[in-house]
């Protein structure tokens, strides 16, 4: 029997965008076991958000830069649930457009990142080139590229003008064929398939017991999407939507779910643009929220939940944020053993490990 070698992987590693530490035990090139440690990016966001509920509409976006609009929306949804606010339809549609736009920027980032881990630099650059166009669209609507500051309890602070809507529609028409070309590569390219098919499998049973969510769960045969259940803030009335899911549970399936969702998001934005009607942007609310409530949203990495207890004053008594990456990263302890050492970055990146969200 070969000797067991221990290799530290991270917290600073070229294949990680954020600090995460894996202690890999290897027998020759094969991973035998792994220990994960995190917390390098803990900022005490839950505590910081107890200070002022109005400031939190903007502070919540700072939890994560890749799903900032999802954090802001979920926070506002929770305050709206506590205060009993009815969000105007136009605001819901604008939120849905921005949520889907950010899903595209997040998924193309992850797909590009997987391509880089696979060693497919050309594909990585192509994904990032297309992503930049969607970043510009978000900038066009909100005036910002990362932290949009568009949400407010009761609605949104910025409108989409008819000219902006037209520009958005034209850009989506231009971008769709480019995304479809990339879809063909992810679906069929032999280099990509060899490095992702059958690698890092997470079975449906494992996914259930680890409580994973989002594309990781949907790639393991769990067709669960918060957009279809329990999310009052998402505008889906009159919109065609079916969750994307697969059964393979490997790196390829996780990439494919994200690729299909990217194309689906383009379709959802188009449908929403067709439903934009004149109306108010925000429901007025005076005073302070009082009571307990929670809300969820389908962030790019999966179910994001905010649970808040307010006591009728500017301070909040408790803010709990359960991010999708917090539950999606630990199953790596079951996905990595048995794999070859060069596959480790591909498997880790395929779960889209957002450490900002995980550590908060």
């Amino acid at each position, binding site marked *: 029997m070969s000797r067991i070698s221990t290799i530290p992987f991270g917290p600073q590693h070229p294949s990680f965008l954020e600090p995460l530490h894996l202690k890999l035990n290897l027998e020759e090139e094969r991973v035998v076991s792994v220990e994960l440690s995190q917390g390098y990016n803990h900022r005490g966001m839950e505590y910081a958000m107890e200070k002022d509920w109005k400031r939190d509409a903007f502070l919540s976006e700072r939890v994560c830069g890749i799903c900032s609009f999802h954090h802001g929306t979920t926070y506002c949804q929770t305050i709206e649930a506590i205060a009993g606010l009815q969000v105007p339809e136009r605001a819901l549609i604008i939120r849905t457009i921005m949520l889907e736009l950010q899903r595209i920027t997040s998924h193309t980032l992850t797909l590009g990142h997987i391509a880089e881990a696979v060693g497919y630099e050309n594909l990585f650059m192509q994904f990032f080139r297309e992503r930049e166009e969607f970043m510009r669209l978000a900038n066009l609507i909100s005036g910002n590229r990362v932290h949009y500051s568009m949400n407010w309890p009761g609605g949104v602070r910025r409108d989409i003008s008819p000219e902006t809507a037209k520009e958005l529609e034209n850009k989506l028409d231009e971008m769709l064929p480019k995304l479809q070309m990339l879809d063909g590569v992810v679906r069929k390219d032999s280099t990509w398939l060899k490095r992702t098919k059958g690698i890092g499998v997470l079975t449906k049973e494992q996914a259930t017991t680890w*409580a994973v969510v989002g594309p990781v769960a949907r790639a393991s045969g769990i067709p669960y999407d918060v957009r279809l*259940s329990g999310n009052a803030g998402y505008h889906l009335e009159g919109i065609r939507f079916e969750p994307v899911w697969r059964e393979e549970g490997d790196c390829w399936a996780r990439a494919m779910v994200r690729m299909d969702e990217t194309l689906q998001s383009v379709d959802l934005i188009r449908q929403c643009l067709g439903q934009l009607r004149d109306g108010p942007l925000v429901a007025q609310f005076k005073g302070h929220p009082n009571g307990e409530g929670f809300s969820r949203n389908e962030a790019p990495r999966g179910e994001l939940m905010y649970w808040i207890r307010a006591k009728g004053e500017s301070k909040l008594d408790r803010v*709990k944020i*359960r991010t999708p990456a*917090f539950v999606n990263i630990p199953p790596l302890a079951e996905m990595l053993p048995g794999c070859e050492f060069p596959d480790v970055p591909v498997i880790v990146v395929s779960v889209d490990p957002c450490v900002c969200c995980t550590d908060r």
Partner: protein
Amino acid sequence: MTDEAGVSTDPNVDLRAKLMKADRSGPSRLICIFPLDNADGTLDMIYMFQRKDEVIQYRYKVKEGAELDSISDLYKGAWNMEREAIDMFGIRFKGVPGGLFLMPETGIKAPLLKPKVPTVGSAQDVATEVKKDV
């Protein structure tokens, strides 16, 4: 949402029985485990699950620093949630170590616990004792 407020101060037996029963009646998905500080020496432990389209919330009142049974044998995803509760609120779970987040030894223990404000009576008592010492 179904809010099943636990009246028991000991969730160790009650919660496990409910979860085993839930498993028999259909698959339920763990959403989150987290404590709330009531600022009176007690914490509310909240366990959130989803069964089909319904969110179920089990809630127990426990004493600060209490030791609870871990449910990570039923749901592996509970492991890190319990470790976070240990780090942030000083609660204990049998067989679960804390230290999920990297915090210095000299840092504040259980930083999300509310600061305890002494009552007027106890403050006077402390003052009296100090005088005696002098």
